[in-house]
Every structure is written in C-alpha cells, then in structure tokens.
C-alpha cells in the first residue's frame, strides 16, 4: 500500500485516497470545435508510461482535495507533489 503525501494533510495510507488518472488533461476550451477523433482522444486516450507518470489523486477520506503528483510506475516512488 502506497504512502501518499497529501499536500494538505501529510503522508497517509493509500486507502484514504482515490485515483484520478493522468494529470494535465484539461477539459477542452470549446468541445464543439473538436473533431470526433480529437474529442474521443480527450475522452478515452491516456498515457501509460513505464517510469515517471504525472497523475491525479484525491484525499477522499481526508480533506477531499485534489492534487497532482509524479509516481514512478515501476518502483512506485513518488517524486513530486503539487497542490
């Protein structure tokens, strides 16, 4: 079980958190302008790297705040955290 550094509450067990997938995939500014392909990419296509991955978490059973961090998908080491 990961030990996740919540930027607001400190290090807590993974069971307190929910996973939010890849970070940095903003909602398009004008979805109506996008082609079906571009919209489908936003909906369904996410990176799945071996190594450093920028991802979202929410402290569901704590402060309920969303934050980003970078986790190594091989070692599970968490490098960076951002509010």
């Amino acid at each position, binding site marked *: *079980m*990961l*030990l996740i550094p919540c930027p607001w509450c400190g290090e807590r*067990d*993974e069971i307190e958190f*929910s996973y*939010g997938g890849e970070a940095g995939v*903003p*909602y398009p500014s*004008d*979805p*109506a302008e*996008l082609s*079906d392909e571009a*919209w*489908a990419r*936003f*909906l369904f296509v996410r990176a799945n790297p071996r190594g450093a991955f920028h991802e*979202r978490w*929410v402290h*569901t059973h704590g402060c*309920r*705040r*969303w934050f980003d961090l970078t986790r190594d998908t091989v*070692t*599970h*080491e968490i490098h960076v955290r951002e509010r």
Partner: protein
Amino acid sequence: MRFTFASAELAARDGETLAAALVRNGVRGGFTSLYRGRPRGVYTAGEEEPNALVQIGSETMVRATLVEVTDGLVAEPVAGKGRLERRTTPTRFDAMNAHCDVLVVGGGASGRAAAARASGRVIWLDGRRSDPDLTLPRTWAVGIYDDNYVLAVERGRRVWRIRAQHVILATGAIERPTVFEDNDRPGVMLAGAASAYGHPEGVVAVSGGWSPRVHLWSQARGGLRWDDRIGAPVPSGDLRGVECVGSLTGEGLPDAAPFAIPDGDEEIMFVDLERDATVADVRRSVGAGLRSLEHIKRFTTIGTGSEQGKLANVLALRVAAELLGVHPGELGSTTFRPPYLPVSFALLAGRHRGELFDPVRVTPIHPWHVDRGAVFENVAQWKRPRYYPEENETMESAVLRECAAAREGVAMMDATTLGKIDVQGPDAVEFLNRIYTNAYDSLAVGMCRYGVMCKNDGMVFDDGVVMRVGEHRFVCTTTTGNAAAVLAWMEEWLQTEWPELRVRLTSVTEQWSTVAVVGPGARGHLAQLTEIALDSDAFPFMAIREGEVAGIPARVCRVSFSGELAFELNVDGRQALALWQAVYGAGPITPYGTETMHVLRAEKGYPIIGQDTDGTVTPHDLGLGWIVSKKKPDFVGKRSFARTDTARGDRRHLVGLLPAELVAEGAQIVARPGEHRMLGHVTSSYRSAALGRPFALALVQRGRERIGETVVAGGVAAEIVAPVLFDLEGARRDGVGV
C-alpha cells in the same frame, strides 16, 4: 501434559512444539503424502515443514512444527489438503496498526544486533521465538508492500499493520534437502531439525547446504543473484528503506558441496515433498522444452504447495540446471509473493464479519419499520423497507395491496435515503447549468426541477430533483446508491476545472429526512396536519412550500415518483419519526416499501438510474431528450451526444413490454423464437395491480421504432409498447379525476 495425535494419547513437555513432541515420542511417520499416499514424517523444525500438517479444531493445514502443545490438544494429521469447516470459526481475531522508525524482522543473532543498535521507535519481531526482549514475540512478518508497509501475524490471532521508515531483514537461511532414492521416507529429516530435536534414534539427517530466506526481500522487489559459493540465490542491489543483515546475505553460510543427481529411480527422488514432485517430473518438464524456473514450476507444480517452495525451489533450480547442463543462475528465479506463511481469511477479516462486515445505515424512522414487521432490502449501505407484509401475505400480494392503496387511496413511504447535496454560492446556477443537462436560470426560488447528469461520454450518471430554496441556494437529490459518487463528481469539477466558480457543496443526506405522502387521498390526509394551502392553484406541481406539518417545521415539495398526487415532507432528521407517526396516525394510510415504489414508477415509465441503465445509456436512449438543453453552449456530456456512436440510429431505447407472463429482469430479447441475435434485455419486470397484468421495461435496439411489434423476452412473447403504461395523459398528478 497430555495431547492426542491420530487418536493416540501422548505426553508432551512444557514449551514443546507438536512436531518435537511427536519425534521425542518415537513417532517417525504419522503423515501421508497428498497424491501418492506415501508415508511421511516430520521433516523440519520450522515454517517450511512440508509433511507434518494437522487439523486442530476448526483450523486446518496447521504446521506441527509451529504449534506449541497445550494440555489436552487434539491434532489429526491432514494429508496435504485441508478441510474447511462449514460453520463460522468461533475464534476471534483482531488487528493493530503501528508505525515505527525501524522494524527488525528476525530474532537470531544478527536481528538482535540490529535491534540493539537501532534508534527511535523500534519494533523487533520473530515468528518462532518467545524471547521477552522481542517487541512482538511469536509474530511472523508475512508480507512487505510498497513504502515499507508490513503485515505481521501475532500467534495466528492478531494482524499487525506496520508502517516502517526502515526495515532490517534478518530472516536467516533455510537448510536445503537433497535428492536420492526414497528421500521422503519417514525418519529422513534435515540435519538442523535432527539437531534441534536432540538427534533422536532412527533419524537419518540430510543436508544439501543452506539458502538465504530471501522471501520478504524479494516481495519488496529486491533483486537476487546466484551465489556459487553457497549454491543459492542471495539478495542483490539496493532497495530504498530495506536492508539485509546476517546469513540472509549469505555471510557465514557454509560452502555448498558440489551438486549431482545420483543414479537410480528418479520417480522416487522427491524434489517437492508437499506436491509429490520428483526429479523425473523436472526431467519431463525440461524434456518438454521448458527453460525457465517459472515454467518448470507451472509444469511440475513444484513450489505451489502451502509451504510455497521454501524447501523445494532452490533444489528444483539446481536439479533443472544439472539436467540442462547450464549454470543455475541462467534459469532465473520464481517470484515470491505474500504471504510468507498461510494466513486465514478469518484472520484478515478480523472483526469485520457479520454485522460489522460493512457499515449499516438506517433512517430515523427505522424502528417504526421494524415494529411494523417490514421486510428490508439493502440499498447500498442502507436498510430500506421492501414491503410491509400483513398476516400470511406474500411479497406479491403485499405489493399489489400497497400499489392499489397508492393509486386509489393514500400511502406513505420513507424516502430519507435519497442523497441530498446542499449547493450554495453566487455561481450556483452556473454550476448546475454545467453539471446537469437542462438549465436552471429559469428555475424560480421555491420551485424544483427534475435533472439528469451525464459523464463526459454522454452516458447517464445520475438523476434527481433540484430544489431552489434561495437565490443562491439549492438542494439536489441523488439516487440512494450514488450519493457519495455524485458529491465527489461535483467536487472534482469545482476543484479541478471550475475553481473560479464561487460554490460550496455539503452532503445533507443525514440531516434531512423525507416522508412521501402519495395518492389521490394525499391532499385530504395532509390537510389535517398542516395549514399550508394544498390545492393545485396555491401549491402547484413542482412547487416548494415551507411551513409546519404536525407542528414540525417542514419543507414540502410537490414532486411525484408514482404519477399520483404526492407531497414530499422534508424535515430535520431528529423529528422524522415524530412526523412519520403523526402522518400515520392522522387516518387510514398504507405504508409502502421500495418494491411498490419500483412498480409505481415503472408503470409510469420512469427509469431508475443503475437499474434501467448501465453506463452505456444516453438521456436520448431513455426518451429523456426533452431534458437535454439545446440552448446551453456546453455542459458535461454535451459534445458526446454528437459523436457518431452516440448519434447512430440503431441504439437501444427504453420501451415498455407487455409479456404474456412475468419475465425475469435481465432476460435476453430476440426478434422471434429460435433467433439468437440479441435485440436488448429486460431491465425491470413486475406485476401491476393497475394494469391487471405483468409488464416490463426493456432496452431494445431501435425500440421506439418497434412499438407494436411482438418480440421474445426470456422465451416469452411480449409486445413492445411506449414506456408509459399508466395514466398516459398524466392527469393524476394533481389528483384530478378522483
């Protein structure tokens, strides 16, 4: 001390293990192998014991080497395969959480030295030792997970969940068996075990060298390398926060003797005693072309018994390398996974069994439902009355009676479990406009509106009623099971995409209770309890009125989930039972449960999100296109309605079905008997008092174009009709015509 083994009464000494007592009593066999039925005896003095497995009370597959004899102990040998008791184990288990700076695993000399020099909060544990210096004597570390989360088991009764800054593994080494003909005979024993048991008569001591106990290191994803000197894998490389000391590193272990498979009958040279796997089995596996230990393991089942290859794996590696003529290091190693020792599910469950398995939520009115003899159903964590049987009533007759009361007289339901989210802030309208498919600018204070929300893919996620209780304040209801998910969904948008919106969300599900008063007699019934004007002009459909009901402050909404005239009374949860009793006491009224609620809403074609939908259904599929705004520039899900797949003409539509007899929910729908191509499935199915026949709702391909056609649902002929089956013109919601 006396104990019984296989019906024989024997004597034991204080502190002796069952295995030690058996060996001292001259028991050389006593056990039988799983597949070949060969006689076996105690082989080790530790947790790697492959033969001496016993049943003690309700616990099975217990290693005799790990059980301390107590007076009167009764143990029966188990031939390699346990037997689960049908009854619940009476043993009580528990769990503890702990944090420490240093966790030392292993109570030998190097573990002791590591614990002595460690500073800060130190936990020092060992599975077999009872040394009082240990922080946790008789406690096995069975699993090590990410960020040094260690699961340990104290005396088989208590789980420790330990988070350690630093873990020092001092797990030592395991003596290896050797291969020769009949090496499984009773009396053959590892040299270390023979020594531990005091070199008893008639014991043949064998040793093939020593292998480090690398299991926890490997579980923590530590690397391994083959050490030629000791003839076994040793920990290799570094691991953040985990350190190996003592003979686990190979230090101090004796040089391995050269390894060779002797001549003779390989079918009786055993490599894995618990699995009855032999040198001949390994030869067959490499003959079949297998070259990696992982594959040889799967072919031969070596290492898959309850001792998980503690004895057999390194031996198998050496045998296979010898047969292939390669260096053992080339064959790789198997992956060690938790648990290091078998752990019972009852132990892991701890106190979370029976009533404590999952939290149970009940409404403030629950005691009344219990007194009344309601039959309950679980809806998420809530207990909801499903129906209220009268004497000798079946569910079917109770539901028909309750439905008739709601359609012809007056009935009441506890609707407290619906999720309620208080939405406040100057941008609340804009927020709701973006979350729901319809618009809220035009919703006046004191009115409510039905709303549907979708995910980005355009599929329906939840629905409910949005009440505008103030200029900048709304209460949104959600489905019972989705309340937490909807709040989390809204919160995610506010925090991550719309931080500029000045809106705050609070769950008020527990604070408010809701009592629905339903039926043509609802107005007359309620008029006895309140001065709120209830006629349709003063209190129109979808309006909200604040006032007192039975002297209790209430927010009353004219919403209907049955098509009948209905008032939903929202009050402070602490006064809900008093309100319920007052409503019930004001004249003849029938309480009804979720089953009746389902029938009433289905007769009107109102879908239940999560029952009639499954995450692949759009509002348009449900016939709710009218609730999808065409004016709003954007809202969650809007873009997806124009996707090719979402806009195609042959999607499944929600329709009504009139089957010849009651059909099962989930039943497959095909065009004609004998046809296999699925057109859709039944999502809801009931008997209807109002229609005098069974009916169903279904998702059917191009369903709205097929109205009037007959299809086959679960083998039963059924006519496709519009989903609204009762009161098509919607006249009853104002109580008109009664």
